[in-house]
């Protein structure tokens, strides 16, 4: 199993580890609920070095990114990032990702750990005819995420980058705790925060300095357990659960990231047709009305007919409810529609609710 360069730091914090697609990652430290609430109320620090980093550079880097992804990378300024996807010709997901425009002709794609090798091969297999160089830098990068309303206060003393000048999805290069890094105002929790990338062989300097600085702000280290509950409350997609090679970008409710007018990209034709003809199923957020917790793969019933499975499903530590995502036939996707989820042989009532389940503006 692969370990990140921060493994020793996690051991020191008393992490429980789990295997995650070939990586030995912290699942929790102090407990999922406590970690979850620390991020919602104060701040949390995540090691997400298992994520993949693929660099596309060269004269036609922009053209190539435009061809691979449905969002409009041409609208990115240097030092900006955007959420996007790698799409198949069928308009479904090879992966979802962040596209960083780092320099003239240089893009950094941050992809899911589970898909890094698949994505790299996918990108290579489509590069013919483009004057680009593609490199898988995943083994070189350490990535940490500092998330929560106190994140900027914790990070500011450790860097010369003016964090207040960074808008959402802004990217800056500078030093963090004396270590060269890329800092972006991005995250996967529904809170304000930063993601920090470094090629340094000593990334624990960044981790340790943030942990130390965070002491006065009730910062906690956060494992993959709370990362999942946080992103689900914020309705951020998880590849392999909510989106995959069988779900189209439109079905996944991500119409906003498709820019049809930008020109050709993989899947454009199918997605355009689907947009015109209408989709037959769509992702919905639900909460369980009856007791229990709906978990991934539990069968979903509408009028006694099995129509789907739960994609993501968990207890929500912030809302104290069982929440989740599934795909329903389009005629059942209206807010308030009731359906059933089978839990250990019993059909339990659920209803379609607005997403995201949690929005940070709603908080005091």
């Amino acid at each position, binding site marked *: 199993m692969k370990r990140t360069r921060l493994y020793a730091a996690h051991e020191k914090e008393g992490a429980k580890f789990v295997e995650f697609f070939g990586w030995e990652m912290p699942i929790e430290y102090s407990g999922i609920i406590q970690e979850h609430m620390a991020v919602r109320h104060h701040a949390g620090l995540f090691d997400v070095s298992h994520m993949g980093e693929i660099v596309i550079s060269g004269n036609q880097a922009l053209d190539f990114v435009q061809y691979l992804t449905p969002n409009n990378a041409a609208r990115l300024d240097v030092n900006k990032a955007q959420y996007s996807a790698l799409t198949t010709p069928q308009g479904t997901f090879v992966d979802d990702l962040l596209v960083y425009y780092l320099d003239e002709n240089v893009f950094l794609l941050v992809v899911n750990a589970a898909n890094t090798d698949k994505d790299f091969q996918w990108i290579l297999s489509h590069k013919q005819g483009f004057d680009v160089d593609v490199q898988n830098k995943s083994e070189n990068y350490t990535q940490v995420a500092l998330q929560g309303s106190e994140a900027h206060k914790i990070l500011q003393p450790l860097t010369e980058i003016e964090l207040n000048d960074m808008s959402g999805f802004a990217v800056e290069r500078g030093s963090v705790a004396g270590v060269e890094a890329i800092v972006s105002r991005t995250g996967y929790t529904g809170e304000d925060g930063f993601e920090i990338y470094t090629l340094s062989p000593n990334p624990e300097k960044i981790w340790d300095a943030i942990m130390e600085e965070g002491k006065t702000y009730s910062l906690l280290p956060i494992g993959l357990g709370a990362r999942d509950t946080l992103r689900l409350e914020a309705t951020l997609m998880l590849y392999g659960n909510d989106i995959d090679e069988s779900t189209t970008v439109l079905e996944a409710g991500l119409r906003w990231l498709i820019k049809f007018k930008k020109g050709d990209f993989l899947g454009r034709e199918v997605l355009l047709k689907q947009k015109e003809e209408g989709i037959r199923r769509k992702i919905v957020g639900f909460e369980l009305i009856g007791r*229990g917790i709906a978990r991934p793969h539990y069968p979903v019933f509408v009028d006694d007919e099995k129509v789907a499975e739960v994609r993501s499903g968990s207890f929500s530590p912030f809302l104290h409810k069982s929440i989740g995502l599934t795909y329903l036939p389009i005629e059942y996707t209206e807010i308030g529609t009731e359906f059933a989820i089978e839990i250990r042989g019993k059909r339990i009532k659920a209803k379609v609710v607005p997403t995201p389940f949690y929005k940070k503006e709603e908080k005091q």
Partner: protein
Amino acid sequence: MYPDNFYYTKDHEWVKTDGDKATVGITDFAQKQLGDVVYVELPQSGSQLEFHQSMGVIESVKAVSDIFSPISGEIIETNEELNDSPELVNENPHDSGWIVKIKIKDEKELEKLMSASEYEKFLEGLEE
């Protein structure tokens, strides 16, 4: 840590007897393994249980796990407090986090269970 007057199972349940009545819960080791408990599905009072029959479910944020009956008998009471406060299983697993009370059918079955020191040895074996 593990009370001397309890019996223990390999599935990490504990049993405390009082005459022909047994109180049953999960051990401190089990609650730590599960993490934050958020839901306990309790059996019906009056149900008849065989030894090692699944009698309920404990759900933590991440995991679902069966609760097995450590002895045969009839459920005479369930811990209704767990409906509102499932976290009692984490906070006080050997006391207020108890799960059911069973009327013991055959006291000889208790001999199959482990003592506190045997259970502690069993746990050491798991950690190796």
